[in-house]
């Protein structure tokens, strides 16, 4: 009886959230799946509906450009998240030490984190400007570069330069999470290990990393998912160029649906992205669980 009442209360409390989520996410997702099997157009989508089954998917998967966009996105996600995690952990280790200015430095980490993504993208675009940008001027004045060069105009560097901008903004998130986890590690663990003769490297792998692995994995998952959605930084910095070398899947879907007005095939692209994200999420979850049990 009490348990029954509890169940009712539980669902009642959940109702506002469920209603909102069904409205803004559930229904649209189902509608996207529906769209993806039609030839709907952006203008008057219901008038031009025609059922095409899996034709859109076949077309999407056989498109070399789309596969290339998937590759760019994967590269962006793996490299940027990897760098963010490595740098983030290093920064967390640094900030876990005692030194003058530590509080100030920790406060500074908030700056990139709070800077709007679009502002960040714009800032780096100005810095990378081939003629009047600060990067060329700095490197040449320091003697590290012979002559001004193009950063965002060269397919060999463009995506990497975008990644640097992204890493700059997001490594503090990883650093702050790792730092909070580090501060829960008891100091005597280290002392005991030192007495056992464990070196710095050894202590890191045996004590530090296992202790922060949980929160770190969560940060990793979060960042990977975010990285897979990447749109705004690309839109502002390169708009997919040069030679489409920075065109990511979100940008691709945007173009398909809103520039070429093909809502149907845009939806199928979007769902392929969802599927890839889902695989990534699942595999990470699996890794975390495995790590937790070991």
């Amino acid at each position, binding site marked *: 009886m009490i348990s029954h009442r509890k169940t009712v209360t539980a669902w009642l409390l959940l109702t506002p959230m469920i209603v909102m989520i069904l409205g803004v996410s559930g229904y649209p997702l189902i509608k996207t799946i529906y769209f993806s099997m039609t030839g709907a157009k*952006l203008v008057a989508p219901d008038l031009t509906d025609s059922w095409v089954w899996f034709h859109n998917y076949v077309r999407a998967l056989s498109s070399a450009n789309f596969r290339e966009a998937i590759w760019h996105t994967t590269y962006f996600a793996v490299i940027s998240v990897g760098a963010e995690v490595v740098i983030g952990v290093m920064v967390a280790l640094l900030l876990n030490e005692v030194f003058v200015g530590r509080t100030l430095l920790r406060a500074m980490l908030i700056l990139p984190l709070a800077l709007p993504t679009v502002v960040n993208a714009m800032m780096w675009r100005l810095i990378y400007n081939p*003629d009047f940008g600060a990067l060329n001027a700095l490197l040449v004045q320091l003697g590290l570069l012979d002559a001004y060069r193009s950063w965002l*105009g060269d397919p060999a560097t463009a995506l990497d330069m975008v990644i640097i901008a992204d890493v700059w903004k997001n490594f503090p998130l990883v650093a702050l999470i790792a730092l909070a986890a580090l501060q829960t590690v008891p100091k005597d663990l280290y002392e005991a290990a030192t007495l056992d003769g464990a070196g710095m490297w050894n202590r890191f792998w045996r004590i530090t990393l296992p202790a922060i692995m949980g929160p770190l994995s969560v940060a990793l998952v979060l960042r990977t998912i975010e990285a897979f959605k990447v749109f705004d930084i690309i839109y502002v910095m390169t*708009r997919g*160029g*040069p*030679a489409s070398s920075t065109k990511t899947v979100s940008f691709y879907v945007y173009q398909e649906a*809103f520039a*070429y007005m093909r809502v149907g095939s845009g939806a199928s692209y979007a769902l392929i992205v969802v599927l890839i994200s889902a695989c990534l999420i699942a595999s990470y979850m699996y890794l975390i669980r495995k790590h937790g049990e070991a």
Partner: protein
Amino acid sequence: MKIKNVLKGAVFGIFAVSGAAHAAHVTLNALFMAQAAYSEDDIRNMTADFKAANPGIDVNVELVPYEALHDKIVLSQSANGYDVVLYDVIWPAEFAQYNLLEDVTNRIDEKTREAVLKGAWTTVEYDGKYYGMPWIADTKFLFYNKDMLKKAGFDTPPTTWEELAAQAKAIKDKGIVDYPLVWSWSQSEAAICDYTTILSAMGGKFLDADGKPAFNEGGGLKALQYMVGTLDDGITNPNSREYAEEDVRRVFSSGQAAFALNWGYMYNLANDPAESQVAGHVGIVPAPGEAGISQASAVNGSMGLGIPSKSTHKEEAWKYIKFLTSEKVQNKYARLSLPIWKASYSDPDVIKGQEPFVNAAKTSLAVMAPRPTMAAYQEASAVLQEALQNAMLGTSTPADALDEAAKTIADMQ
């Protein structure tokens, strides 16, 4: 009795006021681009003039980058959209297909039709119907730095593309400037405009008589080979591959280039000491031709003003468009964008102080080559943009890049 009259008067007064307020309540939302042609200040000043002349109508001016213009027009169709939009010469086919713009054929009288440049009308006309008024009559011109040419021993600017390359080579060899040529060759429509200009000079065609892609042979192929050649020879600024129009203006205005291909708006800005370090040394001529094929070349880069079909203030919108495109207003703001009216080109007020610009325009506007008219233009252009970039970045030969693009576009049709 008196009180009654007073009351009556008051009631009428309120009605009158609310009536006036009602009339004044029409607010137009207008979409423009913040790139080339008229400056933001020009557009805002014209609008202020319009509002002063039409107290009942308020106008909100919205400026977006050219790259966002097409998508904004399409996206705003559904609700709370715009009443006036600026659109490019390449879009009417698509817009007509989806019925995005109001057909205004009946609003344009015979006199207006006669008085406006023929090339300008092609901007707003599709399938015999008019979808607005042309506003910006523009094309790409060849700008040159007189000082640098003189230093290199050239008295006249080039008249053929070969000559342009030769002069640029000489300027580079004399050490006058590292990269004499600068273009807007980023992955955008701007690159297509430069390519179209050269293609037309070299006798190329985008589509053959059957509407199949033909730019991968003849003049179309030669044009891209020429572009890539100038990069290989080191006479084109390699950063051109990431430049848009404004970057070209910056580079040319800071004295880092001897030649630039750009829209007409650059003439007065590059000659303005507040904006430029080469003011007073800027020359302008029509883009060159090709020996035996053409005297000069140009691309139709005109733009028009239209009324989205969902607008609820079409009368007021048309009034605003008529005002902006009127000969009087266009002549007044003729520094960055030349008028669409034939008579303006002999109007002393328009010509004064910018004779070279107007002279070049007379030749160029007459030879403007169109980009292909097709409903899927946006997509075809994106394919071609990528092909141009692949060739310019050396990841593909011009022939291979264009063949592939031609195949993709043929499949699309």
